């Protein structure tokens, strides 16, 4: 399929991570009473940001490789692993 799922996953988690990080950094700290004083929005937001970034990086790298493979292949089709036919 033409769309690499890593790109939307990466984008979505980067955005969600960013929202949580910003809210954790600038929001009212009183709300963290229920999470035992831990600013979970900031901490978990950073985890999501890293995950999203990694997914994006792999997705973009994968896209570049596929494009390079397509250029190298005269039929313009990405080569597939050999399939066992019965």
């Amino acid at each position, binding site marked *: *399929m033409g769309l690499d799922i890593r790109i939307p996953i990466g984008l979505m988690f980067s955005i*969600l991570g960013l929202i949580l990080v910003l809210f954790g950094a600038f929001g009212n700290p009183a*709300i963290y009473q*229920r999470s035992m004083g831990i600013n979970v*929005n900031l901490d978990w937001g950073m985890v999501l940001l890293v*995950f999203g970034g990694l997914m994006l990086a792999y997705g973009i790298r994968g896209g570049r490789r596929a494009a390079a493979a397509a250029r190298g292949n005269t039929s313009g089709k990405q080569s597939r692993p050999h399939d066992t036919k019965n």
Partner: protein
Amino acid sequence: MNLTLIDWLIMFVYFVFVLGIGFALKRYMKNSTDFFLAGRSLPAWVCGLAFISANLGAQEVIGMAASGAKYGIATSHFYWIGAIPAMVFVGVFMMPFYYGSRARSVPEYLSLRFDEKTRGLNAISFAAMTVFSSGISMYAMAKLIDVLHILDHPLAALGLPHSWTFHVSVILSGVIVLIYIFLGGLTSAIYNEVLQFFLIVAGFLPLVMLGLKNVGGWSGLKHDLPSNFTHSWQGMSNAHTNPLGVEWFGLVMGLGFVLSFGYWCTDFLVVQRAMAADSMSAARRTPLIAALPKMVFPLIVILPGMIAIVVPKMVTAANVTGTGTQISSTAPQGKGLIPVKVDPTTGKPMFNADGKPVLDYDLAMPNMLLHYCPTGLLGLGLTALLASFMSGMAGNVTAFNTVWTYDIYQSYIHKNASDEHYLWMGRMATVFGIILSMGAAYAATRFNNIMDFLQLVFAFVNAPLFATFLLGMFWKRTTGHAAFTGLLSGTAAAAIHQGLTLPEGAVAGIKGGWLGLVHVYPSDMAQNFWTAIWAWTTCFVVTILVSMVTRPREEKELVGLVYSLTEKPSEGHLPWYQRPAVLGVFVLSVALLLNIIFW
């Protein structure tokens, strides 16, 4: 409950991506293979995550947390015994026939291997089942949205009464799933399932970490719970000495063999995800890759339930003040965060026959979220919960539109139409499949017993299935007549067994005993497992007997469909870590290790 702007923003971002994926994929849907089988072009890890995500519906997230609160770590048998071995089996041994035969669905495999009547029986019962499961998912989601008062503020702002919560939830979830499947077909469903998989982990993992920290880690939890809650095999030698109320043989045979293999190896809802893979080896790796996260899922879905029943004592120690948002967690007879069940018609707490309060275990997960998650993380957790409802629904809808179009419409209604016509029919099937699900959701609000009854009937239909597939794939002598009669007699055996037995403390009716009473089981679960064992055994024996007296098909017609007549897929070109057999052994070893650790 008061959701703030941040929580809504997180939910909004998620829905933008869900629909965005559908729109982005629209232009790739050129023929029916693209729509129903994702063009058989997806990598193994994507199919693998979709494979478990399609099964990770609401029933699983809410239900497993509820079981965790009710039975403790023994609930993980549903994973380590009730899923992993079957997932390894389908990947290593069965996928070569599903994928290799180029069948486009599980019922189509049955028509290639046996005959049209066996396919028809499977296709029609399966199609009906998917519609009802998707309806039940919608119903459960609407109920939860109602209980958590998520839509109260938006509805009030629009001037609509609170009673509209149900309508708005059902219609909104239906329309969203409809849009993204209508546009992007199976690919869209699979991509969204992968997104949902990560979201569920992202939403629930911090909850588990906070909860564990609060109760003093695993050792703290062990200290506060009865010992059979933290040891999965303790007391399993006798049904009366363990929380599940079932003995090890019933558990291993009923759950671990019949029900689990019947689901993971023959249910098109999950098998379809593997059929979308880009090669035979990717298709075989799909369930094996799925098994890896599946094994550790008890951590995310069962542990919160276990933490929920010990929490309040710890709360005072950790000095967390209740902010009044958790639903009646302070009700006098509740247990931890689990409140007493309230009768929806009278609004009064419910009591069982012994006068003990009935606990509403289904609220374990939602109450944990409300208890630990501040604004922000709460939005993420609720979004994950909604995602799990939608992935369960979408999985059913894509399985339905494929079976309807290929196995019912193309086979019996309109045979030789163009591919465009079938693509169009697939889209139409998505529309009316969702409309029927909505109808089922409304039916559930009025006749709860009818839903229970239907689920029971489907359990009867499913229980014998694996016997048919096992014989069909591994014994070339098995005939179509035998498969058909075997399935029918298996279903009959299930019904008769259920009709003659009852779980302890139940009255004759939907729980069984409607034919008379021969045996009383210590629990519902024991009765279910034994019903399945009877159904499977009957189907297995009848299929063998009828095969012996009917004429088998020519061997040359069965090449690619039966084990002994099919060339083994070569794995020589794959690196060792991609070989299904190696992965299978690894997965089984880790599952064994987990059983030993939590013995």
